[in-house]
């Protein structure tokens, strides 16, 4: 008796907890409401199965409790029942998979004309780069990184000279337009996550990863690193400010470009490094450190 009651309590308790839980997703701030919808569909389908299995089990435990001298029914197989269960399960799975793949297709299809912004991860800090007036992000190379060129931009690439660099500050995004977020790491794995955006992606040294979103609500949100990146992982934070286009443009205008940074540094350190690199490969890295 008490076993059946406990099983029912677990089923009912789980459902009650689900609906009463004060812990639920943060209000969304991007276009990825489709993801939330898919989660809700999944909840309904799986929730029904969970409750059904538990209640049926409670019924069995109660109804078929051991009685001395009774025999269980001998019916090793029931093809019809097994087929039905398989088909219904298949339908349930399709009911989750099809909407899921549909939304995934949107997720991987960056809309043409999306603005590009680069996020750079280092242990344990975020930096950001905007394409500047030409709208194109310049090329970069880890080997070009030095104290004066922390992003490793290629000084010979004209596209990079007007890029706007934000080191260790906040990320600003304009409201309402699609943004392709390019992700780059220069040391270990990181992961760019803003829970309110729902989207996330790892940042992998040696390659550039990306995802896209459209911010749909102004506000300031936490950026967290979601891929273990060493002892400081949990401290790797920044904020993203989503604001109206005017405010965004004004803010962007105040930031330094790569060309300005180089001019301020009084030299052209990136160029020098790149020349050395071209001739001697890795050795350049060592020389620069020694300086």
């Amino acid at each position, binding site marked *: 008796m008490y*076993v059946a009651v406990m099983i029912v309590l677990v089923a009912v308790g789980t459902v009650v907890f689900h609906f009463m839980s004060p812990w639920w997703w*943060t209000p969304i701030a991007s276009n990825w409401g489709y993801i939330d919808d898919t989660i809700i569909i*999944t909840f309904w389908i799986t929730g029904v199965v969970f409750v059904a299995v*538990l209640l049926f*089990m409670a019924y069995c435990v109660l109804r078929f409790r051991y009685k001395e001298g009774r025999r269980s029914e001998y019916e090793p*197989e029931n093809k019809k029942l097994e087929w039905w269960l398989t088909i219904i399960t298949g339908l349930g799975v399709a009911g989750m998979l099809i909407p*899921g793949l549909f939304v995934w297709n949107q997720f991987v299809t960056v809309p043409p004309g999306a603005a590009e912004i680069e996020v750079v991860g280092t242990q344990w800090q975020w930096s950001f780069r905007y394409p500047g007036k030409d709208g194109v992000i310049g090329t970069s190379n880890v080997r070009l990184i030095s104290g004066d060129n922390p992003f490793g931009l290629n000084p010979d690439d004209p596209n990079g000279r007007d890029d706007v660099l934000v080191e260790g500050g906040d990320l600003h995004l304009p409201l309402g337009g699609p943004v392709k977020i390019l992700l780059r790491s220069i*040391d270990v794995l990181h992961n760019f996550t803003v829970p309110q955006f*729902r989207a*996330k992606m790892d940042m992998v040294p040696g390659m550039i990863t990306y995802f896209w979103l459209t911010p749909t609500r102004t506000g300031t949100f936490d950026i967290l690193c979601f891929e273990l990146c060493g002892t400081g992982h949990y401290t790797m934070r920044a904020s993203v400010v989503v604001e109206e286009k005017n405010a965004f443009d004004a803010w962007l205008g105040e930031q330094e470009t790569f060309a300005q940074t180089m001019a301020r540094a009084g030299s052209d350190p990136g160029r020098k490094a790149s020349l050395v690199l071209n001739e001697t490969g890795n050795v350049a890295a060592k020389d620069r450190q020694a300086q």
Partner: protein
Amino acid sequence: MVDAVQDQDDFVPPAEVAEMELYHPKSWLTKYVFSQDAKVIAIQYSFTAIAIGLVALVLSWMMRLQLGFPETFSFIEAEDYYQFITMHGMIMVIYLLTALFLGGFGNYLIPLMVGARDMVFPYVNMLSYWIYLAAVLVLLASFFVPGGPTGAGWTLYPPQAILPGTPGSEGGIVLMLVSLALFIVGFTMGGLNYVVTVLQARTRGMTLMRLPLTIWGIFMATVLALLAFPALFVGAVMMTFDSLLGTSFFMPAISQFGEQLKYGGGSPILFQHLFWFFGHPEVYIVALPAFGIVSDLISVHARRHIFGYRLMVWAIVIIGALSFIVWAHHMYVSGMNPYFGFFFATTTLIIAIPTAIKVYNWVLTLWRGNIQLTVPMLFAIGFIVTFVNGGITGLFLGNVVVDVPLSDTMFVVAHFHMVMGVAPIMVVFGAIYHWFPKMTGRLMNVPMGQFHFWVTFVGAYAIFLPLHYLGFLGVPRRYYAMLDTGFIPESAQDLNAFVTVVVLIVGAAQMLFLYNIAVSMIKGKKSGPNPWRATSLEWQTPQTPPGHGNFGPTLPVVYRWAYAYGLPDATEDYVPQNLAPDQLMSDYDNSGLSHSAAQAAE
């Protein structure tokens, strides 16, 4: 065709080969220490696995103390926390569960249940244990080297695993990789034994379709392990080279802490593919033996044949095969080509179908059964509840787009603990209560067992259910402290404190379990050979615990499957696999003693 003939009731093929020669120990040392008897090796494996598992358990308390009361325990630093999660995760998955299910239960049950005198290669089997022990010792040694054990997470992702900034990058990581390589070598020796024994050493009449599902589960898990571990092995070797010799298999050009490193050209994602090509099947290496064992627990204690046996076997085989083409569902947001997501989401959700069928068949076995709520049965029910719960959340994480917000949150932690932590552990407990009488000749104390069950089951559920919701909220995994995070309400910290308290209670209950084992071993009620009145061969041995060679002078001959419960035309409600057909109506319940013991256990 052959199968159709063999499936006929009572069919027994003629003996084809002579029995093999058995190794006989000559001294105390070769009998109890360097033993080649699978039963002794099984117990050695089990004790070692449980001992190292206790280390992982204590580590989990440390982690929970930190999460529940972040500013209270100054001796737990961030470095420590990351070392704890890494060692905890790796020990639980590999050194406890894999070793216990395959090295422990596999060694004990395979020869007994298929009707063999021992494993086919006993000497190699013995080596397997000693190499496993060496792997465990190397792992433990990493706690004592400068820098301590690795804190790279149990996934050991490069580049951070071998670079400064991650705890244990000095020596701990190398010891971890060496230990894993040793484990794999040792496992391969044991694994070949399990596979060959199941295929070649079954007794007369034990066709594949008469094998107990326990054996099917362990067999398939071993096949998976033999195919999956090599991927981890090469990954470990390559990373050791990257770390010690300066190769760049997994290391791209890196600038770290203002320094240019000498690496270049490697791929971190390559390691992730190797790791998860092993890592996903690993989930089933733990799950399939649990599936098999729980099927037998349910059948025996519900006094009913397993429902849909053939489908259960096929489900095990299909799940095993599919488990090799789903691995990248762990990498949806790793930066691999996003179009892979379509393929891996589809294969992953398809696996849910045979898995669901198994669940249905377990509950349909209870249906119209004659259910004895013994301690093993309680744990079997606990398994079904937690496995269904954890399986369901797998459908969230497998469905690529749903994984995007949830990946690397507490939701993932809750999911895998439910499905491959709590659920298999339920089976381990159930199996220990179930087979303890065979291993010792004594029953375990029932009230203590019931108390252990309720605290563990309700406690574990209360620990891991709410964590899913923290994951929804966006609380990341592998966070030493949440610090000030705008979107996380105060109440999340209260929940964490509550969870930690429950963890400590559940932990205390495990001490009671160990006490129960110790006391029952000495003082437990005598069980007789077959206290549960079960059909499979291990319960039909002439001696309990079974002697050297398991079955006395002649091996049993098998006439039917292992699920002849409730046969209408037999005197008892169970018919042992080796009962000759003309004995069905005789008084074969050979142990009046055991009968009453089973009732006492009620």
